[in-house]
């Protein structure tokens, strides 16, 4: 069944259209920056974007920061919200179930399909952004990352080493120490994994709503509403008490992969809170879906 779901994902035009659109945003941004040479000043705008003029190799990180707040969660909510409700509305759900495909099995296959989709999009954004960055913004120059997220508080944020890093042309971490390309690649893989997992909370909420309604749009919008609420509360001082439990609270913790040494605390918490959301909402989805009359 997992294979069947993946085939359906791959053969669906929507998958590729959304993929291209998500990759197009960082590309357009890169074109503007390359043409005008105007990057946002350090500490303003999207993370890493101020540093990309110094090193095109950093552009994947900047691109991920661009798609993370809106594009990626919207795409995730659309695919996950459609997963069961879309099949119900199209009438194919009942035919899958009488094949028979067990209801638990179908839910698991759907979750794996959604996860694969998110991973595919994140990797595609990273790869196209690396190509765009190196081609349009030029290869790496020293001292690149140090300025990138100057506004982000973190222990060990050092002064930029401003071009004196050993080996001219090296990339430095946010903490000012040099990073080899291999280290950069490793940390990018870590960031990809973290961002993919960060989307699973949204995916689980959308999947749960998808078992409740047979309107894919309703499930998608419901999950997005939960996200928007979370993002508002995260910035609200009065809501400090609940902030550690909000699904979007640690979304930006992947930036900590680019510190030296990697600052694990928020990354671990980010993984933890997503795990909780996945367990709770998948559990709810399972409880609802396996006991429900399929009348669609």
């Amino acid at each position: 069944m997992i294979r069947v779901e993946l085939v359906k994902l791959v053969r669906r035009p929507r998958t590729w259209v959304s993929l291209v659109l998500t990759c197009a945003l960082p590309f357009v941004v890169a074109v503007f920056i390359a043409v005008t040479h105007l990057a946002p000043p350090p500490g303003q705008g999207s993370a890493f974007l101020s540093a990309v003029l110094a090193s095109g190799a950093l552009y994947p990180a900047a691109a991920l920061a661009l798609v993370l707040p809106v594009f990626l969660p919207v795409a995730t909510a659309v695919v996950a919200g459609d997963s069961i409700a879309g099949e119900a509305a199209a009438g194919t759900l009942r035919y899958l179930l009488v094949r028979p495909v067990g209801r638990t099995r179908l839910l698991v296959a759907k979750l794996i399909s959604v996860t694969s989709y998110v991973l595919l999009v994140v990797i595609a954004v990273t790869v196209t952004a690396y190509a765009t960055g190196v081609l349009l913004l030029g290869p790496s120059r020293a001292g690149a990352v140090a300025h990138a997220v100057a506004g982000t508080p973190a222990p060990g944020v050092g002064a930029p080493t401003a071009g004196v890093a050993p080996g001219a042309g090296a990339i430095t971490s946010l903490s000012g120490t040099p990073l080899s390309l291999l280290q950069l690649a490793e940390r990018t893989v870590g960031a990809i994994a973290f961002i993919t997992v960060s989307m699973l909370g949204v995916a689980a909420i959308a999947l749960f709503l998808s078992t409740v309604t047979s309107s894919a749009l309703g499930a998608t919008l419901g999950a997005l509403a939960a996200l928007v609420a979370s993002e508002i509360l995260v910035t609200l001082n009065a809501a400090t008490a609940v902030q550690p439990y909000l699904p979007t609270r640690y979304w930006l913790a992947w930036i900590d992969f680019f510190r030296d040494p990697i600052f694990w605390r928020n990354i671990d918490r980010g993984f933890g809170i997503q795990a909780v959301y996945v367990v709770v909402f998948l559990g709810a989805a399972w409880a609802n879906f396996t006991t429900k009359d399929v009348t669609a």
Partner: protein
Amino acid sequence: MITTRAVTKRYGAVEAVRAVDLDVREGDRYGLLGPNGSGKTTLVRMLLGLVYATSGEIEVMGRRMPAHAREVLQHVGALIEEPAAYPHLSARANLALFDAAGPHGLAGRRSRSRRIDEALEQVGLAGVGRRPVKAYSLGMRQRLGLAAALIRRPQLLVLDEPGNGLDPRGIADLRQLLIGLNDDGVTVFLSSHLLAEVEQLCTRVGVLDSGRLVLQQDLAALRAPTGRVLLDSPDADRVCAMLDGQVERRDGQRLLIRSTDPARLNARLVGAGLRVRSIGPHRRTLEEVVLSVTGAGSDQVDGRR
């Protein structure tokens, strides 16, 4: 093949299906009749484990449903209300996906292409299997739905309104196909509100009315001669005079006469010099049978029949 005991489905205060004892035997072509809203679809969905019964027991192919859905349903082909398919894919790709889903999805791989060809051939879609389904007409979609039901070579077919969307030619094809499959040992269970369709196809009928099974009988028994003879004669007046007391009803030149032997009656009339246009044993039509056991259709609010 299908046995239910006191199966009941309640939605809130509404009882959609009430204490139904269904009995479908192996080799039957069973037609479940009933007006729209009488509970046919809910009953079919309960047989297939899509809707859970509020109370009662369901056995399909000798096993309890929905507990043994995994073992039972792999031998069942189903069409439930409208057919459904992924519109951007071709008929072949749709059939391949549905065949790969569920148990033995991988094991069936080697024979898949052959079984798809066979199923498309059976339903008359052999030439158009590579076109995307969104370009299909309603009748073609219905045929594709049937192909999906047939692709696993099931022992039991459960078809909810299989004639929907088919033109007269399509309905005749469907009848031939189902009779052929039945001859090969496939039990056919179908629901319909089209009496003529069921009358021509089925060997056994059940009638649902407001959620109750008000009749379940072999069609041959229902359509047995009623002990009367239907006669059409230009000399109707003289026939009435001759058979005084035996004539039950008269409608112009058509007479309903109490007699169990049309041949002897014919000889007697002709012997007396009376002309006979047609004569034969009287049988009730399925329509008469069904109307005699059902009340007003539950979706007919004006009470018209």
